[in-house]
């Protein structure tokens, strides 16, 4: 059914259709509207047979989900940024124990300095945790991915993060097509746990494993994730059959046929990129887009195949691995090893900095002529940066960096263009 609702609301309704049994949540911007909506649904009875628990921290939220999932209940939580970091010990624990928890990550930058706006640093900081990671491009895709996520997680017995850009998607009101309960029930069977805490068949879960078996356990986790590379496209195909649209899958190509330059990105920024690519195509550029939906497991073969015929690729990402460069970019480079392609990294939108069509036009055109640095920081204010560098050279006690920059910039918040 078509609805004009906020992205958070859409996700909440989709999650509710999946018949979750235990929802535990701790509030953090920008995930709050999702859990508030779910809480209300539980309280007024529209979401029945579900326990909604207000926990005292994100660490507790993931822990409650662990306990619930281990007891055979379909469990869900949501978080972002600082909250995700606070629960990291439990995040690793959930994947290590093989519990199919679904978690929405409303992507937000990680402090210090504290910043509530969108970038991908939070989810990507957990890329090695053993969780499956999917990135939604739109509100529709966000709600669709949640339905696929439950199925995927429970089939593989692995936890899964569904990532959607904080504020940009969560707080945007868009038209979405909300499935019916019947459709979801047809697609998503009840949770049949692989292992469960039950007095009828006692087991000890969470043993201490030493050198003699630890490597095997880790290998098995890796192998398990690899199975998702087959399942994800299959489940996306099934989804299309039941719900009537393309959603999910490992990758989405756009205008890649005959493209010399392919822009690779994740999340909502793909919308802006596609608009720019349309305009550049009209100008005669052979340029295309590759959107990565499944980040973990990283679809090495699919990415390589998608880039097989281009000359160069530009990875535009809202993330930065301090000390080395791009995160998505390094993952992509691993896929295209030996293929002789030229590759460029553009770091953009950190901490919610707006990514404009004007800036993208400029950087893509330069890239198409191989006229950019290997790593570019989009729209960086070099004046401010250089001033700070000078300051630090001149005075040992130069004070906190962030506060100094804010004074220089003169305005707190995103710059207006």
């Amino acid at each position, binding site marked *: 059914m078509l609805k004009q609702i906020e992205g958070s609301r859409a996700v909440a309704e989709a999650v509710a259709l999946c018949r979750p049994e235990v929802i535990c949540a701790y509030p953090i911007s920008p995930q709050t509207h999702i859990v508030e909506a779910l809480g209300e649904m539980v309280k007024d009875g529209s979401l029945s047979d579900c326990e909604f628990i207000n926990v005292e921290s994100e*660490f507790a*939220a993931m822990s409650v989900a662990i306990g619930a999932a281990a*007891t055979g*209940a379909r469990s869900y939580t949501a978080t972002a940024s600082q909250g995700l970091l606070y629960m990291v010990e439990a995040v690793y624990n959930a994947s290590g124990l093989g519990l199919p928890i679904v978690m929405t990550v409303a992507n937000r930058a990680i402090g210090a300095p504290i910043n509530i706006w969108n970038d991908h640093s939070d989810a990507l900081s957990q890329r090695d945790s053993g969780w499956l990671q999917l990135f939604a491009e739109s509100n529709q895709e966000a709600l669709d991915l949640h339905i696929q996520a439950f199925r995927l997680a429970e089939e593989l017995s692995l936890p899964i993060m569904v990532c959607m850009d904080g504020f940009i998607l969560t707080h945007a009101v868009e038209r979405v097509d909300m499935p019916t309960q019947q459709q979801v029930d047809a697609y998503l069977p009840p949770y049949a746990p692989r292992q469960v805490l039950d*007095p009828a*068949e*006692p087991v*000890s*879960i969470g043993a201490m494993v030493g050198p003699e078996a630890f490597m095997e356990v880790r290998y098995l986790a890796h192998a398990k994730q690899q199975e998702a590379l087959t399942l994800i496209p299959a489940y996306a195909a099934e989804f299309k059959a039941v719900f009537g649209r393309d959603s999910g899958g490992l990758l989405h190509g756009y205008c890649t046929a005959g493209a010399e330059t392919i822009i690779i990105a994740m999340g909502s920024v793909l919308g802006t990129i596609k608009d720019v690519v349309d305009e550049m195509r009209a100008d005669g550029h052979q340029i295309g887009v590759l959107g990565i939906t499944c980040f973990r497991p990283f679809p090495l073969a699919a990415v390589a195949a998608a880039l097989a015929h281009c000359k160069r690729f530009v990875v535009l990402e809202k993330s930065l691995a301090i000390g080395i460069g791009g995160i998505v970019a390094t993952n992509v480079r691993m896929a295209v090893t030996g293929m002789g392609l030229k590759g460029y990294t553009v770091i953009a939108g950190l901490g919610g900095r707006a990514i404009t069509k004007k800036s993208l036009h400029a950087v893509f055109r330069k890239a198409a002529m191989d006229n950019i640095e290997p790593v570019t920081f989009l729209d960086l204010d070099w004046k401010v940066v250089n001033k700070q560098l000078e300051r630090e050279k001149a005075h040992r006690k130069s004070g906190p960096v962030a506060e100094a920059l804010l004074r220089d910039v003169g305005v707190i918040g995103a710059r207006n263009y």
Partner: protein
Amino acid sequence: MSFQPVKFYQTGTFTVGNRLLPPEERSVQSSSKRFNSINSGHRACQGCGEALGARYAIDAAMEATNGQLIAANATCCLEVFSTPYPETSWQIPWIHSLFGNTAAVATGIAAALKVKGRHDVRVVAQGGDGGTTDIGFGCLSGMFERNDDVLYICYDNGGYMNTGVQRSSATPAAARTSTTPAVGPAPGNVFGQGKFLPAIALAHDIPYVATATVADLRDLEAKVRRAMEIRGARYLHILVPCPLGWGHASHDTIKMARLAKETGIFPVFEAEHGEIKSVLAIRRPLPVEDYLKPQKRYAHLFGQQPKVGVIAQLQAQADRNIRKYKLLESL
């Protein structure tokens, strides 16, 4: 109600069993059909009080719930010595997640059971003093506040024992640990405010709070039984001596717990909704020296020049407990 011993029949109810008592009046531990929730072959040290306390508590819980019990366990001695791959000594459904989240995991288990309509299955969370009073404090308080249907059992041996006897907020004053060594002008642990978690649990007004020791088996079992009659957040704090960490002989484990109670160092009581309902009175009062002397972790208080002042402070603490909790029947 605290278990009141029967005052005749030779050993009455102080011993584990008694062939003269009808079977229903004997302890759960005396039965040859007892569950042995934690079985032989675990790697606890010789004379481990925690292994004993865990079996006592969980067997009693199994009896009280007709075997319908799920246990969550923090990282602690109990978890480490009971589940080293490929062996587990647990005979019940059991999960170990992390160090500080056991109360939350138990909340999750309880929620799942509720949703699935399995009202007969009950949940127990277990942790050491470190995992309960320090790193697990936040989750514990959250569970209390929400009144989740979980019985949390803390096995208090006064330190982070399995990592090498380091100090926790439950370590008693003046005790030697590897992070409060017996050197310098103020050897051993500091004299701070002390963090007595049962009192904090009382302040949460949860339905049931009790303390117990491994030396008073009947009392401990009665408390577990009572706790299982109640729904909601419940807390049981059991004193379990550690021969290794406390530096006493392995055969004196139960004796040390007994001395802790008889000197007033460890008050044994039972409370509901923040009000103390009963107390296991001191049977034969003793000075704190009797408790301190057999433990090497207090050795620096004795010897050629005993630290009389420190001992007096410890005695004052014990006396305060006796007054506060009315541990002598005359009070």
